């Protein structure tokens, strides 16, 4: 059963008019209530057509993923750190406006089916029994821990390892700045003793009611200590489609209640892999940013997630299997495999973006035919994903081409850079403005 496209049209119209999603002239956002999306003028059906591996790293996917992420985050409360300025109040009220929340909720099932359907369809067949599933959990984890993650090595080998590490933190931010907000959604109701076991994990995530211990606080401190803004979603415009997809997945399986066993499988994997990875990443941060770097976020998880992964397996999955039998194995398996697949996609996306930044080098070139875009001094070109490899050529002025926050290259007049297919690119005009073309690579 899917909602007919015409039923979605009024909601789509409301979203297209909403100030919350209007584009802004900034690459780093100063308000958690601004969620610029380059909304295409075409109908919702075109935006929300099912994704696939081939279309995940496209502009349409970015838009779809931003919509879905915002649909979930509208149920999260964010408050500014200071008293509301007049424009904050307006943005705050616009962001939580019930009609807008309802409109996005109405689109959500379609967005979810498009975002996750293809990936679920690609998963391996589930094991037949709960026992086999449990064995598989441990086997996959052993395999994961047997080799060091390639990501820290790639960060170290990057042209600017500090920028690469910051860029990675930015991709974690959609999830970790609101850490365990997904888990919080899995809590209401009454689901027996499992409910209390999940609560034990949740209180750790939320730091026992102590602000300094809350995992999201630890992540904020880590961001601040490497020189990043720790304001919620300041770097929203630099979130890659796969980072949003991964974060949204956990919102999905905690919001759609019949997906709860999927959530258990996914939660196992996400808790399980953390100690091994975080140990390496914490060391990397200290090595690059100095011994005083606040790595408590990563260090905390090296310890507590050893407990959490055991708790998920022994106190949630095992008793759930005992009560509900092998009938829940397919959902557990699906959740675990989805978490793995999404983790791999997000890592791939990040590494490709890193390679794009490292390879960015302006070269002199003649102008390309085609419509040029003019930017005023300081004006930004909002980050977008290019669907096919493109060439960005500067006809006049200087354009600071950006690959992420703080990863940029000034491209002077008469020069161009290549933006590989699937990569996110933004730009800001220099003091004299800029005129540029962004178009397909000329046939040679």
């Amino acid at each position, binding site marked *: 059963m899917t909602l007919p496209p015409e039923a979605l049209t009024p909601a789509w119209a409301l979203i297209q008019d909403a100030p919350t999603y209007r584009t802004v002239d900034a690459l780093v956002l100063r308000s958690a209530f601004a969620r610029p999306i380059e909304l295409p003028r075409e109908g919702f059906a075109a935006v929300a057509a099912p994704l696939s591996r081939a279309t995940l790293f496209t502009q349409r996917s970015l838009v779809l993923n931003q919509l879905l992420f915002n649909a979930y985050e509208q149920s999260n409360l964010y408050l500014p750190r200071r008293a509301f300025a007049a424009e904050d109040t307006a943005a705050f009220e616009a962001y939580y406006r019930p009609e807008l929340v309802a409109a996005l909720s109405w689109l959500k099932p379609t967005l979810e089916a498009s975002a996750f359907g293809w990936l679920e369809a690609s998963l391996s067949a589930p094991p037949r029994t709960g026992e086999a599933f449990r064995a598989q959990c441990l086997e996959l984890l052993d395999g994961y821990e047997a080799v060091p993650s390639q990501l820290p090595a790639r960060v170290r080998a990057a042209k600017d390892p500090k920028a690469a590490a910051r860029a990675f933190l930015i991709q974690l931010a959609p999830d970790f700045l609101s850490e365990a907000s997904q888990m919080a959604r899995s809590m209401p109701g009454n689901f027996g003793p499992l409910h209390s076991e999940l609560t*034990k994990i949740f209180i750790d995530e939320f730091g026992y009611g*102590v602000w300094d*211990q809350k995992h999201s606080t630890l992540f904020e401190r880590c961001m601040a200590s490497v020189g990043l803004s720790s304001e919620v979603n300041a770097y929203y415009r630099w979130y890659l489609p796969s980072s949003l997809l991964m974060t949204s997945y956990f919102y999905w399986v905690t919001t759609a209640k019949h997906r709860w066993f999927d959530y258990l499988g996914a939660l196992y994997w996400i808790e399980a892999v953390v100690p091994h990875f975080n140990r390496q990443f914490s060391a990397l941060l200290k090595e690059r940013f100095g011994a005083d770097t606040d790595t408590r976020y990563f260090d905390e998880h090296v*310890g507590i997630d050893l407990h959490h992964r055991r708790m998920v397996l022994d106190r949630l999955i095992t008793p759930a299997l005992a009560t509900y039998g092998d009938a829940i194995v397919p959902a557990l398996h699906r959740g675990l495999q989805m978490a793995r697949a999404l983790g791999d996609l997000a890592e791939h996306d990040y590494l490709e973006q890193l390679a794009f930044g490292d390879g960015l080098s302006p070269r002199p070139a003649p102008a390309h035919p085609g419509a040029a875009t003019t930017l005023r001094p300081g004006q930004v070109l909002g980050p977008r994903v290019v669907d096919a490899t493109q060439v960005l050529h500067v006809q006049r002025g200087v354009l600071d081409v950006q690959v992420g926050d703080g990863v940029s290259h000034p491209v002077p007049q008469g020069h161009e850079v290549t933006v590989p297919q699937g990569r996110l690119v933004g730009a800001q005009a220099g003091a004299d403005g800029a005129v540029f073309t962004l178009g397909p690579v000329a046939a040679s």
Partner: protein
Amino acid sequence: MKLSIEARHGATTRFESHRFVCAQLDGQLRVLRDRCRHRGGPISLGAWNLERGCVVCPWHELTNSTRDLLKQELPSTREGDRLLFDFEPPAVDLGVSGPG
């Protein structure tokens, strides 16, 4: 601050956010902070082994041994069916220890 607690294994009381438990430990009833050595979990709700004098915390299931528990003891005196003890709340008490 003079406080008291029922002299019975498992009895609890609190002062502001501070929780206390009465436990049969090392041959006598004692007053302990109701706080696991790990992350401050409520040991009063844990699984006690009175013979071995230890308790498994309900949060992450670590065992608090007699030695661990004695570190949480507040000296007390018996008066009828109650134990009397002194408690000075620390200025800032997060009730939580380091990572692990």
